[in-house]
């Protein structure tokens, strides 16, 4: 399933890219323009993606897929939350919360130790990047 979905995503992405590339000026062989390589690469990618899908030889073990989808969706949700959290609550609270979430997702027992680790990571990273490397974190 995952392999099929990813192959279709690649096909769709390549198709969109190729359509956009056709809108760029191709030029002629003696004077290629900005759309020359994109048109060739986009068309080739569409053909290859179709060949992969039509061959129908999927290799992923189906038995593991349920766990795979559940965990991968939860991790992705955590990452999206981090992106939003950085802009809304700032670096330290967002890092603390997402680190705690990931630790619990990894089934680390108890709440106290994960909370201490999360706080330490958030403060340590802030200290290193903001303090030592002079990078202003949100």
């Amino acid at each position: 399933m995952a392999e099929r979905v990813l192959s279709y995503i690649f096909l769709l992405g390549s198709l969109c890219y190729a359509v956009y590339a056709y809108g760029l000026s191709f030029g002629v062989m003696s004077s290629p323009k900005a759309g020359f390589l994109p048109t060739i690469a986009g068309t080739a990618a569409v053909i290859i993606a179709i060949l992969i899908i039509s061959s129908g030889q999927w290799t992923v073990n189906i038995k593991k897929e349920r766990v795979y989808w559940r965990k991968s969706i939860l991790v992705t949700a955590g990452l999206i939350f981090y992106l939003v959290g950085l802009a809304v609550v700032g670096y330290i609270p967002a890092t603390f919360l997402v680190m705690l979430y990931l630790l619990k997702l990894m089934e680390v027992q108890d709440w106290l130790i994960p909370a201490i680790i999360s706080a330490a990571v958030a403060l340590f990273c802030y200290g290193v990047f903001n303090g030592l490397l002079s990078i202003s974190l949100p």
Partner: protein
Amino acid sequence: MEQFMLLTQGFFISMTPMNLLACVIGVLVGTLVGVLPGIGPVGAIALLLPFSINMDVTASLIMFAGIYYGSMYGGSTTSILLNVPGEASSIVTCLDGYEMAKRGRAGAALAVAAIGSFIAGTLGILGLTFFAPLLARFVLLFGPPEYFSIAFLGLVILTKMTGKSMLKGWLMIMLGLMLGTVGTDSLSGINRFTFGIDELQRGFDLSIVAMGLFGIGEVLDAMLQPSSKIELMSVRLRELYPNKSEWGRSIAPIFRGSLVGFLVGLLPGPAGVISTFVSYALEKRKSKHPEEFGQGAIEGVAGPESANNAASSATMIPLLSLGLPFSAVSAMLLSGFMTHGVIPGPNLITGHPEIFWGLVASMYIGNVLLLIINLPLVGVFASILKIPMQILLPLVIMITLVGAYSINNSIFDLFLVMVFGVLGFHMKRTEYKPAPLIVGLVLGPTMERGLTQGLIIENGSILSFFMRPIAGSFLLVAVLLIGYSLINWIIKRTPKAMDITK
């Protein structure tokens, strides 16, 4: 003679306290990522890239190179002691290394792996010392058609070397090339595929894509692996001496492995992994006791472990002399160069000899350091696996994310890292290899420039590329390889062949 003088100067440069410290950090981090499954040298270099921005250029490159060849050393430790390959290039070592450990010869296997790695690494660097400047001089003859042809041949070979499906390899390369066209076109100045987003005008930052695909992607994948309790075998220092017979059986495989590794390392693709399989097969064929392979034959440790180290040195040759990376690790090293405004290639050796020779000399020093560090501290490195992965993996994710943000102080980069991270994670699970995508992304602009300028020079005739001796040779080999692969693919898909496979 001139090279010896330059190399001596390189030693002076690499032995300054800052560069020596960078070398120590590099080889230590390299050994660590070699030991830890789920975190590879590409992810580690991507992780440390933001920290290197304020560093001296030579020091940061010394550190990154140290991570790469250091990881080759570290991988063998866990393969032998735990039957857990820290790196893909150490998978073969499990076959006989772990069997030796079960028979109480773990110390001998570790010592042969470390000494073989040292000898092969040193021979590989010797090859780098002499071949890279020669190749760089030859590269000065290259025009746009030659650059296009060699990049094209590199990509063709890469599809044959990476993964099980050639079509998937090609698709990944095309995606890399497509990503490489995003941003302002350097020839026409036109914005392509930017959709009005300012951040996309500079194109996709290689380090951001690599941090996502390899850093986040690999860690997310490791997060899904079931955790198991580590039962570590203890090794005492006095047990690290192979006996006379083990030594005798190891010497020839070490040198053969070094040669195999060096030659494979010059080819595009995951040279470290391929060289170990080639070396193992060669040793089994050469052995008087092939039946011992898989049961604890020391040749099965000595050959492959030497091969992957020689390959790591040889991989640097096309990068440093041509400026073209043909593997994911060398693409990351290129990113390290470019972060500091240094473009590898023939002009690096003449224009920035202090960087080139400082880096080469540091690799000799790094190899000695690895031997000193790895043998006595083998137990310490292996015990790192006792750190719960449930804690380590989220930690790596968070450091990678903040590192990605710090490169350009951009939330958009963070978004890209996450997108590529999730993509890399699913790709890893579905046999889509990220390495060809990264190499395609790096080589894309070189190929486009070479093709466009070459066609203008040759008045629009692609056939004229074949008339140029160097470009023609590269293209001919590429066309033959594509033809061979196509015929193979068609034969496999004919009804008769499908009946036989059923």
